[in-house]
C-alpha cells in the first residue's frame, strides 16, 4: 500500500463525503426496483411458457388438462392487473414511432398518422378511427388495448361507456375494449383530460404508477410527468378521491390541484385556475405568471425536442396563450416577443438564454 500523507488523506476523506452527497431519489429507487421485479416476473412467465410447450410435445392430453386448470386458477380470484407488465413488451421502436399507435389485444397494431387522432369505441363494439370504422378481432370483450401518443401528437378517445378522454403528447393509456359490469378501470402514464360518463353504481378508477384516482362522474386532468417527480390531478367538476400507493387518501373539490411528490411522498391541495391546466386539450397552453423554465419544460415535452436554458431563465415569468399547432420555431418567435430571451439552435437542440 502506498504511503499517503495526512493532508492528502484529509482531502480524500472530504472528497468521499462530497461524493456521498449524490444520491438516487427514493422514489426513483423504488421505481427502478419495480421495473426489475416486473422484468424478472416476465422472464419467469416466458420460462413457464417454454416449459409448457415442451410438455405439449410429450403428452398432449396432460398439457390440455394443465391449461384448463391454470386458466381456472387465473380467472376465478379477481386479481390486480399488472399494468407495468403490459407496458414492458412494447419495443423502443414502437415508442419512437412518430405516429399515434393503437395496440390491440391480439398483436394487431394500428398506426395512425394524423396529428390529432380521434378514436371512438362505440357502445355496439365497433371502433372508429378518424371517422373510419376499423374491424377488430375480438377475443374477449375485456381485452386490454393500449394507446401510445408520441411527442408532437395528440389524440382523443371515447371509451365504450361514453367517457371522453384527451391524451396529450408523450402519454399512454391502457383500457379494456369494453368495461366490466361492476368496474371501470384504466391505466395512464403521461397526461390526460377525462370527462367521465356518470354511472352511480360503477366507479371509474384511473390507475397510475404512483396514485389511483377514483371518480363518480366528473371532469378532471391527470398528469404524471416523470421528469418533475410529481403527479398532478386537477378537478374541474364533480368529486374524485386520490389514493397513493401508501394508502394516503385525499378528496378533491372542484378547482383544486392535487400534487403528489414521488420522491418525498408528500401530497398537497391548492385552489387553482383550472383552465391553465386543461387548455392543452383545445390545442393551446395557457400560462398565468408561469416561470419560464416550467414553460420550456412543457414545450420540450410537447414537441419531443431538447431545450437547454441558462441561468436566470427560471426567474422570468410569462403570461398568455401559446398555440400548439405551430411548430417549435414559431413558438420561440412568440416567446421572444413576450420575454427578454435569446434562442439559439445548436445541433437540433435549442438553447435559451436571458438577453444580456
Amino acid at each position, binding site marked *: 500500500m*502506498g504511503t*499517503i*500523507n495526512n*493532508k*492528502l488523506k*484529509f*482531502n*480524500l476523506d*472530504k*472528497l*468521499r463525503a*462530497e*461524493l*456521498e*452527497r*449524490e*444520491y*438516487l431519489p427514493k422514489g*426513483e*429507487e423504488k421505481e*427502478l*426496483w419495480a*421495473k*426489475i421485479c416486473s*422484468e*424478472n416476473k416476465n*422472464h419467469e412467465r416466458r420460462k413457464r411458457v417454454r416449459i409448457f410447450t415442451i410438455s405439449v410435445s410429450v403428452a398432449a392430453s396432460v398439457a390440455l388438462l394443465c391449461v384448463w386448470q391454470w386458466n381456472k386458477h387465473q380467472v376465478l380470484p379477481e386479481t390486480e392487473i399488472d399494468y407495468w407488465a403490459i407496458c414492458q413488451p412494447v419495443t423502443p421502436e414502437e415508442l419512437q414511432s412518430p405516429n399515434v399507435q393503437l395496440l390491440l389485444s391480439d398483436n394487431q397494431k394500428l398506426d395512425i398518422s394524423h396529428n390529432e387522432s380521434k378514436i371512438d369505441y362505440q357502445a355496439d363494439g365497433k371502433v372508429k378511427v378518424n371517422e373510419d370504422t376499423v374491424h377488430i378481432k375480438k377475443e374477449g370483450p375485456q381485452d386490454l388495448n393500449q394507446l401510445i401518443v408520441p411527442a408532437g401528437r395528440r389524440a382523443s378517445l371515447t371509451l365504450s361507456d361514453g367517457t371522453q378522454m384527451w391524451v396529450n403528447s408523450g402519454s399512454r393509456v391502457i383500457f379494456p375494449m369494453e368495461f366490466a359490469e361492476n368496474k371501470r378501470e384504466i391505466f395512464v402514464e403521461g397526461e390526460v383530460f377525462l370527462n367521465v360518463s356518470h354511472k352511480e353504481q360503477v366507479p371509474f378508477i384511473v390507475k397510475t404508477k404512483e396514485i389511483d384516482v377514483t371518480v363518480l362522474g366528473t371532469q378532471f386532468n391527470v398528469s404524471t410527468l416523470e421528469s418533475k417527480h410529481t403527479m398532478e390531478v386537477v378537478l374541474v367538476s364533480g368529486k374524485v378521491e386520490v389514493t397513493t400507493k401508501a394508502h394516503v387518501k385525499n378528496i378533491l373539490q372542484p378547482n383544486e390541484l392535487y400534487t403528489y411528490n414521488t420522491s418525498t411522498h408528500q401530497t398537497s391541495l391548492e385552489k387553482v385556475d383550472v383552465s391553465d391546466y386543461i387548455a392543452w386539450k383545445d390545442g393551446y397552453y395557457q400560462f398565468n405568471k408561469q416561470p419560464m423554465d416550467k414553460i420550456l419544460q412543457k414545450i420540450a415535452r410537447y414537441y419531443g425536442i431538447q431545450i437547454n436554458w441558462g*441561468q436566470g431563465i427560471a426567474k422570468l415569468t410569462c403570461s398568455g396563450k401559446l398555440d400548439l399547432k405551430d411548430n417549435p420555431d414559431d413558438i420561440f418567435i412568440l416567446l421572444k416577443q413576450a420575454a427578454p430571451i435569446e434562442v439559439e439552435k445548436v445541433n437540433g437542440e435549442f438553447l435559451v438564454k436571458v438577453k444580456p
Partner: protein
Amino acid sequence: MLTKESKIKWAEFLSGNTDAYSWIYETYVQLLYRYGLRFTQDSELIKDSIQEVFTYIYKNRGHLSSPDNVKAYLLISLKYNLIHSLRKELSYDLSDKENIPFSLEPTVEDVVIEKERLTLQSEQIKKMLSLLTSRQQEIIYYRYIQELSFEEICQLMNLNYQSAQNLIQRSLKKIRDNFELLLLLLSLSFVL
C-alpha cells in the same frame, strides 16, 4: 462487517430467497448509482444499467458463483454494462482503456447552493483532481474511496498487479509533487 453479511445474503439469494435479493438491491443501489455517475451524468442510462445487473443475476442465479466481495462483483458488472451502453452511444473504442471517461468530481445539482458552500477544501480537491488522468482518478477511487483490494482493482481495470501498483504510485506522486506548491500558493493568497 458488510462484506461478510453481503456474502451470507448472496448465498441465500442464490438458494432462492427473494428477501435476500431485495436486501442486496437496497444495500447497494445508491453506491452503484454514485459509481455510475463517475462515468456519465445520464442518470437514465445508469438506472438502465443497474436494472441490467440485477435482472442478470436473477435470471442466472442457478449458475452463479459466490464472489469474495459482493460489492466488487456488482461494481464490475455495472462498469461493463455501462461501458457497453456508453460505447454504443458515444462510439468510442472499449479496447482503448485510456479513453473511458471517469471523473471524481462530484456532480453539481444546485449551482447556487454549491457556490456558497464551496470551501477552500473543495478548491483543493478540484485542483488535485485536475492533475490526474481519468485512469488515475479511477484507481484512486477504487483504492481510497471504495477501499478495494489490489486484486479487485486489477479485475475492474483489466490490469495486472504490477501495472496497478505503478499506476497508483504514479498518481500519488503526481498529487504529492504538486501539492506542496499548491498549499504554498493558497497560503500566499491569504496573506495578500
